[in-house]
């Protein structure tokens, strides 16, 4: 089985994390699934510039078999339709059975790219998955919550699953020095990849946040300030 994990380059953090929060869980699930069979392979994919390959290096160090950077555009300024379409084109070339993504990015936190990927691939999509297990016969079992129910579902592959933090920590192996794999570059010269929609987000005006932090000295003052603001 070919598992693809879509990663994004999170904003620079002081703690040095190179993987997005939800991406960490997606990669953790992918590596765990790959560990259940010798023929399973994990490919990490990121649409971004050569300066944004940190997550791919981290994925390789953690045990991913291959890392692919999708280049050819300024994806940092693209909307989720564009990024989803670009990733879908790349994934189609890589031939995936199961695509895992983080539920939300660390910067905009929209959670819309996974749906766009599924839309452009024309395959199933399940959001907010917190557990995944192989089910055999071209399917996986997932656990999701919604509408007051916690459900275990059998999902036929291929499919896109967006992963969120579950009650169990995702285990990402510490950096290994023995993985020599390099990052492959996939350049999208395909005309299909140039059919993009750029207008949905870029016209939205960015405005600085003007709220500061009010410091208080008691629980009652904290709650009163929150209720007042």
């Amino acid at each position, binding site marked *: 089985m070919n598992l693809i994990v879509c990663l994004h380059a999170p904003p620079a953090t*002081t703690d040095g994390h190179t993987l997005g*929060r939800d991406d960490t869980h997606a990669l953790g699930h992918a590596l765990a699934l790959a560990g259940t069979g010798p023929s399973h392979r994990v490919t990490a994919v990121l649409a971004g510039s050569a300066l944004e390959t940190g997550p791919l290096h981290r994925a390789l160090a953690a045990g991913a078999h291959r890392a692919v950077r999708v280049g050819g555009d300024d994806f940092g300024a693209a*909307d*989720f339709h564009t990024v*989803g379409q670009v990733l879908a084109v790349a994934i189609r070339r890589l031939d995936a059975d199961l695509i895992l993504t983080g*539920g*939300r990015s660390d*910067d*905009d*936190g*929209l*959670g*819309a790219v996974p*749906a*766009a990927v*599924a*839309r*452009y691939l024309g395959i*199933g*999509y*399940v*959001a*907010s998955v*917190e557990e995944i297990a192989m089910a055999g016969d071209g399917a996986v*079992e997932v656990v999701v*919550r*919604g*509408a007051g*129910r*916690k*459900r*275990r*579902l059998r*999902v036929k592959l291929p499919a896109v699953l967006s992963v*969120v*933090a579950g*009650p169990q920590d995702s285990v990402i192996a510490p950096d290994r020095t023995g993985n020599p794999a390099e990052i492959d570059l996939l350049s999208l010269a395909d005309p299909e990849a140039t059919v993009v929609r750029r*207008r*949905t*987000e870029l*016209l*939205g*005006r960015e*405005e600085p946040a003007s709220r500061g*932090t*009010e*410091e*208080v*000295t*008691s*629980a*009652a*003052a*904290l*709650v*009163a*300030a*929150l*209720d007042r*603001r």
Partner: protein
Amino acid sequence: MDRAERRWHDRTPGAWRLASTFEATSLPNLLVPIDLRDGEPTGPSLFALSEARRIAHQAGATIYAIAMNDRELAPRVVSDLGRAGADKVILCEGAGLGAPPMEATHGPALLAAVERVPPLLVLFPAGGAGPELAPSLAARIGAAFAARADLVVSETDGPFADGVGRVFLRRWRSDRSSYRRLDPVEIERPVVALLASGRRPGQGGQGGQGGQGGQGGQGGSEDIDIEVIACPPPAQSGIQEIASEPDGLAEVSLSQVLVIVDPAVGVEALARLTAEAPAGVVVVDRKAAATAIAASAPEILIGVGHADLPMVGTPSGRVGVILFGDAVLPPGALADVLWRAPGDPGDVVWADLARALTSLAVPATRAADRAGRESPT
């Protein structure tokens, strides 16, 4: 109650008529997908309708409540939707649509409703099917998407008619360094948005976003039309339910006030706060409830023992942080209000906090609504 309920059945969804939504001669449609729990609309669903009503009043728009179910809605539910702000109800009715919504099973039905009524805005309530359905809907119709957004109405005239305002959506970037303002008309395509929880006019409680609703929010009529679209189940959804159980964290995603406690402060503190939390205030363990927290959009969020709250909140939401000892607020952390509690967490802190939280109590939805409705105003 003598209701004049008109119904249309089995209409074939029309062609996508997005362009007409933006013609100056037509007023926009606001769509609010309704989350049902045990056949009743959730509190955030009614809040979303009240928010739609607030902006519809100023922007001149028609509000459609979109419900998906495997049976007719109870007349009382339709009345509740109308009273909360809906002008009309569209019921997507079909086998399997009473199950928890998923893109594979409910996405086509929702799309049928959206094709029937081309929207300017689709406002998903907090804590429901939004994270599952909204991004896919946006992807399908080429819409802009805003997660955890709030709504602002400009005083200046909008594009639709004299005296009709312009509507903006605001959403934070996750690091809350800035927010982005979206104008659906300027973008020339619909906007699909996830709203936060909040108090709607007449729900009670103090302060909060209910005040925002009160700035112009008006209730609707309980006597509204309902249109039924027959939605056959997808031929192959690729999804099969193996097991289902009540979600012990279900109330987290619907909460208006959410207190997230770091497990490091101790299980006793969590248990005490949970036991003493007033109605409408939900207290959870940050780690154990991680998934539910990610799906929540509370009006007020309080982090206890940590400030790691980057993915929650709207520009209208408020964030409080309680830190202990020498802990410092990390750069860029979210905190409108910060209390550095003295020393280690102890009984005094929890008693004080539990007592203070009572002022944030939110009346239970239905009981409070009914009491409010039956009381003379």
